[in-house]
């Protein structure tokens, strides 16, 4: 039996299997969001991003988000997978997704998953530019 929830912190994200992982005979819709490294931030060229985590706590927080979403939207399956380490431009850094009977639920749940992850999960992102590095969101 496949788990209803997949919660993972990994070194490298493979996006090719995510729809198979979320597929379910009771689902008519699957919505997935992938966050990737963008070349420019506020006009400055990003060389790479580095992600760090407090893994034990991050897994707990991700699991809470997934459980809340499963309950609120009656999801059939849910995935939250975040990468850590150094990521180059275009590389995927996070995948969140949900499957549900109808599309309203999986769209709303998918948005909730990524929005809440960004607010509560202890993962930190350092932007590496040509001449400096910046911890994102650290300062007002």
């Amino acid at each position, binding site marked *: 039996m496949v788990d209803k929830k997949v919660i993972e912190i990994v070194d490298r994200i493979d996006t090719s299997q995510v729809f198979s992982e979320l597929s379910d005979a009771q689902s008519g819709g699957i919505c997935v969001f992938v966050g990737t490294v963008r070349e420019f931030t506020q006009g400055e060229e990003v060389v790479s991003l580095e992600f*760090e*985590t*407090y893994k034990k706590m991050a897994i707990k927080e991700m699991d809470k988000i997934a459980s809340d979403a499963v309950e609120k939207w009656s999801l059939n399956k849910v995935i939250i997978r*975040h990468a850590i380490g150094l990521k180059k431009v275009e590389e995927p850094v996070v995948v969140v997704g949900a499957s549900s009977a109808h599309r309203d639920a999986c769209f709303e749940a998918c948005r909730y998953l990524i929005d809440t*992850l960004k607010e509560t*999960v*202890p*993962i*930190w992102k350092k932007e590496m530019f040509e001449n400096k590095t910046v*911890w994102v969101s650290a300062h007002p």
Partner: protein
Amino acid sequence: MEVLLFGIAKDIVGESQLQFTESDKVPSSVSELKRMISETYPEFGKLTSLAVAVNSEYAEDNVPLDRNDEIAIIPPVSGG
């Protein structure tokens, strides 16, 4: 008492852990820990937010700290 440091907190302190060894200086609550680190490292006062986790759960200011707890400073998160 050991306090885990991540992200910019690690950079501010220059270590991945803070050690409180002298018993009279061990913080007894989340709020006391926050005050102590902000006094020693004023850079913490410039952050967007500052949270503390006790046993890998976010902890309110009034939560007491015990030597056996796993304690961590949680600077502003930025995953995703």
